[in-house]
């Protein structure tokens, strides 16, 4: 189980991004994190990972998350990586194997095989020698997903992985994530497109500054919960006089 207790994120400029968020999620599941812009979805992930100043804690299988760092994969929202970096697609996927290798060890046959398999699962084996900047946005997102595969991570956190990518890449990534969840991975995905929520996720967390609702999709995905989350009082739906 992944349990998040009293998670608050306050940035150094005083912004309270998230206050006292609580959530429990079963393992082997794929959870959508839904909420308005600026509602604290990304801060929720970063708080869980300890990448931003935070209070409260996240436990995975009853242990603090930093003990699971090597088994935790995180893919940031797009745009922060140097696409001119001298690195090939294959090497980029191989980076996923680094956390578990330990100091002074180089990736060997096992790691290269892992990377190769991961690349073929996202359908990009043919691109392995390309420099990462030569890929489209969707292809590169698939490379980052392949990297989490190569890491053999048990906990996978993705921040808006489908923004600005092609339909084919989105399909490949979604079906891969669902496979991974079946194989035992616990996956959290920040997402903004409500129309696909029911098809993509078996669990949902609705967030607006704190957790509004959490649980299986068929229960949580209700009109009432969505109105609460997106601050849409019935009034705004009435025609203006």
């Amino acid at each position, binding site marked *: 189980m992944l349990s998040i207790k009293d998670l608050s994120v306050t940035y150094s400029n005083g912004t309270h991004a998230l206050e006292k968020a609580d959530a429990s999620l079963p393992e082997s599941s794929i959870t959508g994190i839904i909420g308005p812009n600026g509602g604290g979805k990304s801060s929720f992930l970063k708080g869980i990972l300890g990448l931003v100043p935070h209070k409260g804690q996240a436990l995975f299988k009853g242990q603090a998350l930093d003990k699971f760092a090597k088994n935790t994969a995180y893919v940031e929202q797009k745009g922060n990586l*140097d696409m001119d*970096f001298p*690195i090939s697609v294959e*090497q980029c996927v191989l980076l996923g194997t680094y956390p578990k290798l330990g100091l002074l060890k180089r990736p060997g046959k096992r790691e290269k095989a892992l990377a190769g398999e991961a690349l073929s699962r996202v359908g990009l084996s043919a691109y392995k020698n390309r420099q990462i900047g030569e890929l489209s946005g969707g292809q590169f997102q698939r490379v980052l997903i392949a990297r989490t595969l190569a*890491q053999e991570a048990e906990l996978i956190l993705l921040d808006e992985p489908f923004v600005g990518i092609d339909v084919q890449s989105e399909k490949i990534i979604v079906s891969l994530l669902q496979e991974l969840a079946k194989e035992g991975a616990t996956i959290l995905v920040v997402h903004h497109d409500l129309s696909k929520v029911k098809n993509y996720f078996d669990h949902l967390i609705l967030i607006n500054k704190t957790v509004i609702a959490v649980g299986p999709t068929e229960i949580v995905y209700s009109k009432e919960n969505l109105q609460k989350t997106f601050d849409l009082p019935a009034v705004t739906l009435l025609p203006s006089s």
Partner: protein
Amino acid sequence: MGTALLNFINDLSTYAFLRHALYTAIILGVSCGMVGCFIILRGLALMGDAISHAVLPGVAISYLLHISYFYGAVAFGLLTALSISFIGQHSKIKSDAAIGIVFSAFLALGIILITKIQSAINLNNILFGNVLTIKESDRILTYVISGIVLLTIFLFFKELMLTTFDRVMAQASGLPVKFIDYMIMIMLTLITVVSLQTVGVILVVSLLITPAATAYLLTQKLTTMLWLSALIGALSAVVGLFLSVTYNLPSGVVIVLVAASIFTFVFLFNQKTGLAWKAFRP
């Protein structure tokens, strides 16, 4: 040119000091070239410039205390790096502005100290370097430091690559990102300080940045970039020293100009992005 080259080779076998200068310059070309790759990929080029200028007061103080200039220079180099990140973390000043403030202040302090204390330090030598007059102790120090730096890069290559390319992933997967940051700052400072003798305060940054940037244009693989950069650094050192001896020019500046010429050539003529190719392509 042919006779000049023969003369140079002849001089090399005759004069030990020339041989030593050549070895030192080559080794610095290699180690600066390799460290420089991480410096430019991490966007720290200005930081390297700042550290090299800011070591000056350290050199003067070392002279006052009768210790090797190395200790004072390293202390001020690290102080510079720390001050810059301290200002960045505790105010809204961006790092390029913080760099400008800190290094100019330290450089000014260094110049006052050197001109005011009755010292045998030759300001010209520190500012522009002269590898031909390098002392044996400094030469050995250069070898040792270069060895340490190269070994560090070899041992921690995996961590250096991951933290340089994707800091967030490195952090999320539990790598000691801050430790690696400090390691790079320390390597940068050490290599800068030992390069002072060869190219001087003003031009150290050239040995760090120019070969690495040239290699960056030529390859899309990090390991190849490191080797190419080392090769270009060493080549600049050899050709620079040859021209400097042959035409009686200061060694530091000639080495820098050779490196810059190689960069210019690659910038214009490399097949993928070279401007000259683009211009003639139909």
